[in-house]
């Protein structure tokens, strides 16, 4: 399919003149047919990795943080890197569901459910790492303002405590937003259910929704308000995550560019992850007419824009290191690019700055194998970005006698791999049991959903 610029405004959201019933059938199909073999294989694989994650967490709690590769100057390793990586991935989901909703970008309807699900599962993975890295896990309740016999309260001036509130609020609001969006579709599944169990299970969560327009009125208002509050929320969450670094007095971390730079990076990595997952799901479930090449192209444009912002931030950090005339700052950045971790730095630059630049070309932007490869590169690059920020800033302390080289242990690496297992377990269950595209929203943006579509002059034309 080739779309020219003149035509782009008139490209229908759903291709192939589909009826409402057909749309319901396409989206319900994965949940109503027997799961394919790859699904079982994938689920078993992911569940074993998730089991690995939980056993390694058990090992960590049993043995202590010594099982990780942390050393004296590098007291913050994979746990924070993985946390920021996973939280960042979540951000694209909220951006697609909330910000694009407020901007009336109707193309978002076919990908928002998918992206929101990804947000929730990514934030679950993210939440694990700060939870387990506290060392003495039985004291994790210190994170929350819970009245206790020591008459102590948490320190609300600490960026780490801000993070607790930011991430838990983000998870809760994302979950509410996702669930509110799911209610009408769960009702669709309930009404199509053929077995008693499905009818009851979907029925409970559909809350007795029956498509009443008196309900839709309040529902749409609720959805809009949620989008309006989720928008500043998503910007605040990664800003607060960046405060974990930026409020400390460490060269390489203590920079004012961090909040916008982190938010851009988060959206960048999240879009790459949505793209990776969507390209596969679209192919497997035959959703090509609902998730069109134009949707993918739009996402690539986001990747190009945010990737370029991230590249700009990398350059600006170097400029500020020089312009500030602060020798510690200058050393931190020169060491980042040419020091012992130069390999990580250049992986990051080639994946994050160079690879999205291919999307300037329409041919490459609409080529599915190429965008798949680039999305993988971006996922890798963004993980390395967090690794570079955390580790390179720490491993060269102010005292050269403390300098050390951080090497993750097998526990570090396998815990990270295991978190992918948890993510994909949840994701595969979602693909099988829930509507992966928002049924009611897709119908709402179809031409036949508009009452004016049936007006006289339209009929004459067709």
């Amino acid at each position, binding site marked *: 399919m080739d779309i020219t610029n003149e035509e782009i405004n008139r490209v229908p959201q759903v291709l192939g003149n589909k009826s409402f019933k057909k749309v319901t059938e396409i989206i319900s199909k994965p949940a109503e047919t027997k799961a394919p073999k790859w699904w079982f294989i994938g689920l078993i694989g992911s569940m074993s990795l998730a089991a690995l994650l939980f056993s390694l967490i058990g090992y960590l709690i049993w043995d202590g943080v010594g099982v990780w590769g942390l050393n004296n100057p590098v007291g913050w390793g994979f746990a924070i890197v993985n946390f920021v990586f996973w939280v960042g991935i979540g951000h694209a989901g909220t951006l697609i569901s909330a910000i694009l909703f407020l901007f009336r970008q109707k193309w978002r309807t076919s990908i928002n459910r998918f992206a929101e699900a990804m947000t929730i599962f990514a934030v679950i993975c993210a939440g694990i790492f700060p939870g387990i890295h506290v060392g003495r896990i039985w004291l994790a309740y210190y994170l929350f303002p819970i009245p206790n016999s020591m008459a102590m309260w948490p320190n609300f001036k600490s960026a780490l405590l801000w993070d607790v509130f930011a991430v838990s609020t983000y998870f809760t609001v994302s979950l509410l937003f996702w669930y509110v969006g799911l209610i009408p579709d769960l009702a669709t599944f309930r*009404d199509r259910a053929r077995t008693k169990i499905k009818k009851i299970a979907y029925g409970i969560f559909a809350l007795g929704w*029956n498509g009443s327009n008196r309900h839709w009125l309040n529902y749409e208002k609720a959805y809009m308000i949620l989008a309006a509050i989720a928008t500043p*929320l998503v910007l605040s969450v990664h800003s607060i995550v960046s405060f974990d670094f930026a409020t400390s007095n460490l060269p390489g971390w203590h920079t004012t560019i961090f909040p916008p730079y982190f938010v851009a990076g988060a959206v960048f990595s999240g879009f790459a992850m949505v793209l990776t997952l969507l390209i596969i799901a679209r192919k497997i479930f035959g959703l090509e007419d609902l998730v069109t090449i134009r949707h993918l192209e739009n996402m690539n444009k986001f990747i190009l824009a945010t990737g370029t912002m991230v590249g700009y931030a990398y350059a600006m950090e170097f400029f500020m290191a020089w312009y500030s005339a602060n020798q510690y700052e200058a050393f931190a950045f020169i060491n980042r690019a040419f020091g012992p971790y130069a390999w990580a730095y250049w992986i990051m630059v080639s994946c994050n700055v160079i690879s999205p630049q291919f999307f300037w070309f329409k041919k490459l932007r609409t080529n599915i194998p190429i965008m798949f490869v680039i999305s993988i590169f971006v996922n890798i690059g963004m993980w390395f970005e967090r690794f570079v920020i955390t580790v390179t800033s720490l491993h060269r302390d102010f005292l050269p006698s403390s300098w050390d080289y951080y090497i993750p242990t097998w526990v570090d690496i396998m815990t990270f791999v295991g978190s992918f297992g948890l993510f994909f377990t949840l994701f595969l269950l979602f693909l099988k049991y829930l509507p992966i595209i928002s049924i009611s929203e897709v119908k709402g943006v179809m031409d036949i959903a508009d009452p004016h579509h049936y007006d006289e002059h339209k009929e004459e034309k067709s």
Partner: protein
Amino acid sequence: MTFHGYLCEVDNPKDLVELSKKVRDSGYIKFDTYSPFPIHGIDKAMGIPASVLPWLSLTGCIIGLTCALTMQIWMNGIDYKIPLSGKPYISLPAFIPVTFELTILFTAFFTVFGMFGLNKLPTWYRPIFNNASIKRATCSGFFLSISTLDNNFDESKTRLFLEKNGAKNIERILD
């Protein structure tokens, strides 16, 4: 068997809007329409006033803001003072992130549960679910129901009125 009202069907969103206007203009108040997605302009056609939900959200917003500030000022400024980097015990700029997050959190709770409250969700059983055709309202059907509780309702006249105005598959809602 209680008789709750009539349920009828039309072909498309436009017909539903047109029929709602006629039902509204004939003085019916206790009626409802059902569609697989919200239809643009149907609230006006049915004569439903704007949702009061934003006021509930605002209430949540103010409660969240107040709770967050009170909690932090009391915990860190009064009950358990932490001397930290020369900042005052009650340091409002440092309290902004948590205040912001809790404001959003409370607003979200009030919005979602406020919407549930206004829509009386969850209500797992409604008499209308006894009519098998309503299952299509979540897929491709467009329906309208008029309740027996409406003052203008009359078993034969209402049915005649619906038939005259192009409603199809008129059914009785029973339980």
